[in-house]
Structure formats: C-alpha cells, structure tokens
C-alpha cells in the first residue's frame, strides 16, 4: 500500500499538498504561509499575556500568605503556561490553538495520518530554535524556503500547518434572477456540464460576468468569445438552445447551469451545504 504525496511545483506554487489515497481518492491540504502563521502566533501571544495577567492577580493574593511562594508560583506558572499552552491546546483541539482557530489554521501530520502527542510536543519545543534570534526569524525563513511551508519544529515533528479558508459561494441571486436560461430545458446536458466544468473554470466564468462592466469593450468581447468556445467544446447544446444568444448570454447560461440547475421542484435549486 503506497501513500503518494504530490507537491505542487514551486513555479506555480499555490501552497497546496495533495494526498492521494490508495483508493485513488485525492484530497488537498492548503498550506498556511509564514505571514498567516505569524498572525496566529501573535494572537496566541496576546492570549497568553491575558491568561498570565489573570494568573498574576491570583498569585498576588497568594503573596499575602507568602511572598516567596507567590514569586515561585509566578515563575513556574509562566513557564508551564508558555510551554504548555501550545502543547495542550494543539492536542485537545486536534492541532489548533486560539490563534489558529481564529485564522482557520490546523496542524496536521505531514502524511495525512493521525496527529500524535509526541509530534505536538516536539514541534512546540523546537520553537526555542525557530524563534531565534527574535520574532521567529529562523522559523519564518525556513518556512519560506521549505516546500511544505514547514518551520524547523514542523520538519522535526513531521507536521504541516494547513489553512482552511471559508469558501464563499458566489452571490448569483441578482446576477441570474429573472433571466430565462435556455439550458434548463436540457437537464441531462446541464448535468454533463456540471461534471466537466472544473471549479476553477466555473470561478473564471462567474468572475467574468461579475466584472464585465469594468472590462475594456474589446477585451470583454474577446474574453466571452473565448469562454463560449471553451464551454461549447466541453458540452454541445442543441441549436435551438443557443441560437441568437450572445457570447455573454451563453456564459451566463453556463454559470446558471453549473450553480443553479433546474429541478422538478422549481426553477432553480439552492446549492446544499453540509456542515
């Protein structure tokens, strides 16, 4: 049984790690860059300072009983919290801290396997080297140069940090509302179109329609002509569905077919999301 890990080439780097399972299924993990990670670390630092200031108040009260014990508890408390914060949270929240949660980052095993406690400990202990000489300069540089955007701690622990961006579905309500879509008369061809059009291509079509007013007239005509030719090549609709419609109308129909297929229950169906 072989696990294939495919790294996107550096020249068109999109920082995604694609894991192919032996079952032939691919899933991609979008890697977090050094800037996002630095921001998450800043949030964690602020959280740590907030926690410490609360604990300081508790220790100050302890100081009424014994100043020596309070000072000792303060030192140990700060040490344990600063080291244990990342370890405990990443372990109990499965690879996330407060900062990572807010920025939708997650630590994962580099081969897609279960994250182990030892991996969490090692990547957190190696912050001592990554943070040198100041502000994670070494870690940031290694992260920039590393193909998997790993800092030294990640290399040693065999982990990666992924970013799960919130995917916003295009707001097509206004764009497609009230317009007749001749493609809806051919649900089987729409299904084929949905199957063949890749997500990135669909996004190009959506963005082209949304930004059409900002385009130069010549460029606008050329762009939609090219898009129509491309989509026509994928699926050919009958002549009565395409006769007399402009290239722009054609692309709009494609977007409607991909995102708003006609169903038996109504003109258009809302896409279903699972959370």
């Amino acid at each position: 049984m072989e696990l294939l890990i495919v790294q996107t080439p550096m020249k068109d780097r999109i920082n995604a790690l694609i894991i192919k399972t032996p079952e032939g299924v691919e899933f991609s993990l979008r890697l977090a860059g050094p800037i996002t990670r630095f921001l998450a670390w800043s949030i964690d630092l602020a959280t740590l300072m907030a926690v410490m200031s609360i604990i300081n108040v508790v220790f100050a009260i302890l100081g009424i009983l014994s100043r020596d014990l309070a000072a000792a508890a303060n030192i140990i408390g700060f040490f344990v919290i600063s080291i244990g914060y990342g370890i405990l949270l990443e372990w109990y929240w499965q690879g996330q801290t407060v900062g990572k949660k807010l920025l939708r980052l997650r630590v994962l095993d580099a081969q897609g396997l279960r994250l182990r406690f030892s991996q969490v400990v090692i990547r957190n202990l190696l912050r001592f080297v990554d943070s040198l000489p100041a502000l994670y300069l070494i870690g940031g540089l290694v992260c920039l140069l590393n193909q998997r955007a790993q800092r030294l701690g990640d290399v040693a622990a065999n982990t990666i940090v992924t970013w799960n961006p919130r995917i916003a579905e295009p707001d097509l309500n206004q764009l497609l509302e009230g317009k007749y879509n001749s493609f809806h008369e051919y649900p089987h061809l729409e299904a084929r179109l949905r199957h063949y059009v890749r997500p990135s291509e669909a996004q190009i079509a959506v963005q082209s329609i949304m930004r059409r007013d900002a385009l130069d007239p010549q460029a606008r005509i050329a762009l939609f002509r090219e898009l129509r030719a491309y989509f026509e090549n994928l699926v050919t609709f009958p002549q009565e569905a395409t006769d007399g419609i402009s290239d722009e109308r054609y692309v709009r129909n494609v977007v409607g077919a991909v995102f708003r297929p006609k169903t038996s229950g109504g003109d258009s169906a809302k896409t279903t999301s699972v959370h």
Partner: protein
Amino acid sequence: MIIDLQKFITEERLYWTELEQVLNRLERKPDEKLRLGALERFHYLYQRTSADLAKISTFSAEPNTRQYLESLVGRAFGEIHETREKPHRLRPLHWFFNTFPQTFRKHFRAFAISLLALLVGAAFGGFTIIVDSSTKQILMPFSHLQGDPSERVKTEESTDSDRLKGAKSYFSSYLMTHNTKVAIFTLALGMTWGIGTLIMLFYNGVILGAVAVDYVLAGESAFLLGWLLPHGAIEIPAILLAGQAGIVLAGALIGWGQPIALRTRLRKISNDLVTLICGVALMLIWAGIIEAFFSQYHEPVVPYSFKIAFGCVELLILALFLGRAGCRKIGESA
C-alpha cells in the same frame, strides 16, 4: 456522473454522518478497539465516502460539501492507514520506571557522545585556568565565581545568617525553569545537525572544568564537592540527557547508515525525544529543589562529608536507575 445533485446529497448524507460519528468516537477514545463487524462497517463507510468525494470533486457548485468530504476522508484515512501503535492510557509510573530508562539505554551511544563533548569542554576549561587563571573573567559568566575561591569559602563558612531566607522557593523555581529551558534548547539545537547541541555541551563543560580546576588549585576541593555534588549529581546528567536527545535528533536528520526516508527516521524517534526531555525535566525539578534548599548550606551548618555522601548516593541511584530499571528478566518475552 451525478444527475440530481440534491438527491445524491440527501441519500449519501446518512453515510457521511455515520462515518463522522465513528470518527468522533475513535478520536475521543483512542484506546477503544472496534469489533470486527464495526470495523467492516467503518471501512465500508470510508470507501463509500471516498467514492462520493471522487464523484463530487468536479462540482463547482459544491465547494463546502467537497471540503466537508475531504475533511471526513482525511480523518478516516488517518485512522485506517495509521500503522503506529495507538497511544496508551497515561501510565506515569510505568513510563518513569520502564520507558524512560529503556529509552536512555536504547540511545546510549548518543549519551556517550554527549558525555564526551562535555568532558572535552571540561578539559579545555580546566587547562585554560591552569595556563592562565586570569581567563576566569571570560570563562565564568557568574560574578560570584570570578573571585578568589578561598575568599568565597571563608565568607560562606563564616556567615551566620541564612542569605536565602524567604527566597528559597523563588530561587528553586528559577533554577528549575532556567535549567529546563537550557535543556530544551540543547535538544532543539539538534536541528543544526547536532552542531549546536555539541557546542552547548562543550560550553557547559568549559565552565564546569574551569570552576572545578580553580577550586582544586585553591585547595578547596571539599567545598567544591560539597557545593556541587548534591544538585550536580542530577543536574549535570540531566543536561547530558538533553544533549543525548539533541544528538538522537541530529542522528535522525543526518541518517548515516539508515536506508530509510528522513520522515520515517524522524517519526521513529519522536516518542523517544519526548520521553528523554520529560525525564530531564523531572530530574531538573529535583536538582532545583536540592540546589536551593540544601546545596547552598556549607560547614558548619551541614558537614561537607554529609553533602558529598548525599551526592554520591544520588549519583549511584541515578546510575542504577538508568542502567537497570525496566530491564526484562531472562526468559521474559520481549
């Protein structure tokens, strides 16, 4: 090809939810073992969801569903293809009396390298002091060590007041945390192919050797042993073990004579590194307590002979513990 997307999602969602529930349970209770029937069902759900992901992956209109399925398949993939032993329930006593000394012995060669680096540093430090005692100012970073040893001994032995009164806990916790940071740093420097770790060990050896020779030359050997042995008998081996962990890490990075991939090498040692550094932390807690509450008291408060004997007993127990604890008896299965 999916013709009716909504129908597809409605029908398949039941299986996705079931898989998610199984995954949640397995992640919540990592030591739970599934029965054969449940395992078969789990595998079926994984395969079905994988197939659904393959079908839906071309759907531009379903980015959230695709992301959800990717996350499910990813988690299930991790559970099914994980070949490493599942983490056991926490057994601190078993870990301390078995795993820790066994791990130390498993990487004894790395410990020997660590010890050698410290000894070379100590020899260098000692030799430098013999040749030119004025280098003390450079070699010893602590001001109380830069003066005349005999003067210090005289002051320490004549003082009536307890200079650490009301600050022992503070001093002890400072020592524990500072030394643990140094130990973690020594381990972490293993990522420099071990060069940083060796430099740290050498540097600590230089200070130790310089101090030792300085006190011996001044005829204060009894004070030196009485002062250093009670906590040093644990503290110095702890730093050596941290160095051992750093060298183990460096060994995995370099991979001499190991025809396996870097990731596999690092994966193999990850548990050992954590075991070693946790053991080091425990040792340093003990050393911190002893240094603050015992080592700083000299004759006539505590006789040097008692302090030296205490240190020797500690060292002996530590050597026996690391050398013998957790050894399997003859005939016991491996």
